[in-house]
């Protein structure tokens, strides 16, 4: 792969790296014909981010590696700690860097970042990489019943009210209001903590669609990097989600760039929120996240049970049925566009009290739950799920 980013684009690219660094410790570089995708996932596999830069973003873009592109597209994984310092000071980059050339040198196992700066100065960084399968999560945002779209500034203003240390927040949506409040797990914390709640009218959003009243709780920390990027880039952000337990996606796109963050959401059977209209377990139709969802037809049961993560491997009781499947067979979640490969045999709907899948299932659920990412990866190439070369996640998919 060989590409050149000019002028202001270097700062945009650097900002994307900053946002990805908030998610995970490694960066996947995936040069495709459609563009260069840079992705990251957190260690619990409950947060995923992808920035895809189309060829228009670059002054020059060649996805193939090797002499005359003979080696095809080489996908690789970089350590975030090595890459982030290159883009640490964005103000300096803006001032000094004329262009940045990124290329993959296969024989030496290096990704080369070469910055051509003012005064003829050249900075070359040769970073070691690991060849790797592409990291990709697929998420059928068009199947989500709830959609919000707003300028990044609005979302930034919303989350600004929460302290930087705030781990998770809960987004509640009903036809009348959109609420955002901070989330605490243990009752004992409630006494000491400051509770913040924001309430917005649907008219504040550029687009508001509520298919199912829901409260979703997700990690705010991992989202901040993306929001910061969106604000500086100036594009509106779309939020797609369904019932609690299903992932939430934040995305933005324009001609040259598509970015999105997918976060797993907490399943909390105890929560008695305003929008929880259904019993636990909710009826199948709603559980799969929306009225008239086509996916139920096949009787594929298990709805996504993406869990939440942060400290250690917590088990959260699932309200949405489906016992742990254990072993190699991953639960299928949705069926879309003919990608059936993650089906499981139909399962009985279990009631509450079944121990939720452990974090190993989280990973598979998050990534297995979703269909092809819009516009990308829609080719017939098998979308690789989270890094088949990940050594710490044996036996997973």
């Amino acid at each position, binding site marked *: 792969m060989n590409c050149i980013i000019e002028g202001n684009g270097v700062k945009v690219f650097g900002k994307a790296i900053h946002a990805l660094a908030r998610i995970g410790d490694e960066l996947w570089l995936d040069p495709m014909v459609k563009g260069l995708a840079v992705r990251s996932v957190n260690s619990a596999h409950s947060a995923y981010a992808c920035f895809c830069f189309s060829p228009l973003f670059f002054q020059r873009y060649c996805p193939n590696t090797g002499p005359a592109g003979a080696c095809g597209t080489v996908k690789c994984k970089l*350590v975030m*700690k*090595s*890459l982030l*310092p290159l883009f*640490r000071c964005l103000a*300096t980059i803006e001032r*000094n860097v004329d262009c940045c050339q990124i290329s993959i040198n296969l024989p030496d196992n*290096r990704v080369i970042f070469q910055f051509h700066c003012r*005064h*003829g*100065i*050249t*900075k*070359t*960084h*040769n*970073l*070691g990489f690991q060849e790797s399968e592409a990291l990709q999560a697929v998420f059928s945002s068009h199947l989500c019943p709830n959609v919000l779209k707003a300028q990044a500034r609005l979302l930034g203003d919303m989350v600004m009210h929460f302290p930087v240390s705030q781990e998770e927040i809960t987004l509640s949506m009903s036809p009348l209001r959109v609420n955002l409040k901070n989330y605490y797990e243990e009752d004992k914390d409630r006494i000491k903590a400051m509770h913040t709640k924001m309430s917005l009218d649907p008219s504040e959003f550029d687009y508001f669609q509520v298919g199912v009243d829901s409260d979703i709780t997700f990690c705010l920390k991992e989202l901040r990097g993306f929001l910061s990027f969106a604000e500086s880039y100036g594009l509106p952000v779309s939020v797609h989600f369904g019932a609690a337990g299903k992932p939430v996606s934040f995305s933005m796109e324009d001609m040259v760039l598509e970015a999105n963050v997918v976060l797993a959401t907490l399943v909390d059977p105890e929560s008695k929120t305003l929008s929880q209209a259904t019993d636990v377990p909710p009826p199948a139709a709603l559980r799969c996240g929306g009225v008239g969802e086509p996916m139920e037809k096949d009787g594929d049961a298990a709805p996504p049970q993406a869990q939440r993560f942060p400290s250690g491997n917590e088990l959260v009781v699932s309200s949405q049925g489906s016992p742990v499947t254990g072993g190699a067979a991953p639960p299928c979640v949705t069926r879309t566009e003919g990608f059936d490969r993650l089906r499981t045999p139909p399962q009985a709907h279990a009631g509450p009290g079944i121990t939720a899948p452990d974090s190993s299932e989280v990973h598979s659920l998050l990534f297995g739950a979703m269909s092809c990412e819009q516009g990308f990866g829609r080719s017939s190439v098998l979308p690789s799920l989270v890094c088949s070369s990940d050594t710490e996640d044996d036996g997973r998919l």
Partner: protein
Amino acid sequence: MLLSTHSQTVDDNYVLVASLDNVRNLSNILKAITFKDHAIFNATPNGLKVTVEDSKCLQANAFIQAEIFQEFTIKEDSVGFQINLTVLLDCLTIFGGSTVAGVTTALRMCYNGYGYPLTLFLEEGGVVTVCKINTQEPEEPIDFEFCSTNVTNKVILQSESLKEAFSELDMTSEVLQITMSPSQPYFRLSTFGNSGNAHYDYPKDSDMMELFQCSKTQTNRYRMSLLKPSTKALALSCKVSVRTDSRGFLSLQYLVRNDDGQICFVEYYCCPDEEAEEEY
């Protein structure tokens, strides 16, 4: 003036008296070489030279010419002593580091000679502080035998361009490699860290390059830990000259302008690291 009347009666005993209206003209430049506790002071009629050394491989010198001082009286050809530089700096900045417009701290530095402490009178806004710091037998500074006739390569760069490079240097690299050559890459700084290699190239025709005199391609490595303190001098300076001699010894000379726009010099000498295999 408060300070001069105080010392008039004992003036005859001093072998060195130096006064500054703004102590920062001395303290700032000393901060650029404070990487070790002890410094060797050497005063001559030309001015003051302060030397700090590290593990016999690195030497830093700060030169403050006599003209910088409002008063500089020396009764001998050479006056030398060793002193704790950290303590000295603490005293020189005893009124605090922050600068308020128009307010400066005045300094009068007096030394009676061998065995006597260095006496400092510092005054700001009518408040006077007197400090007496013990002195020790001065050690002989190392002579790196770096002479201009032996210099193989020399460049002078505007500091601005190097400041950024030095602040970004990969500190996981044990060495800083400097390549100077009459052909590409002309002047290159390289690091070899955990994540990979980095190279900073300055072409000979860059407008940051004020002088480029390289006769022979030379690549030398220096311990990063030794050179890192020179970043302080670089931060203060507006220009830096980088010279290497036939042995690979490095001389960095920094041109520093003080608060009043006067010029002082700081120089660093460094021995090359033992020959290791060169990586690209």
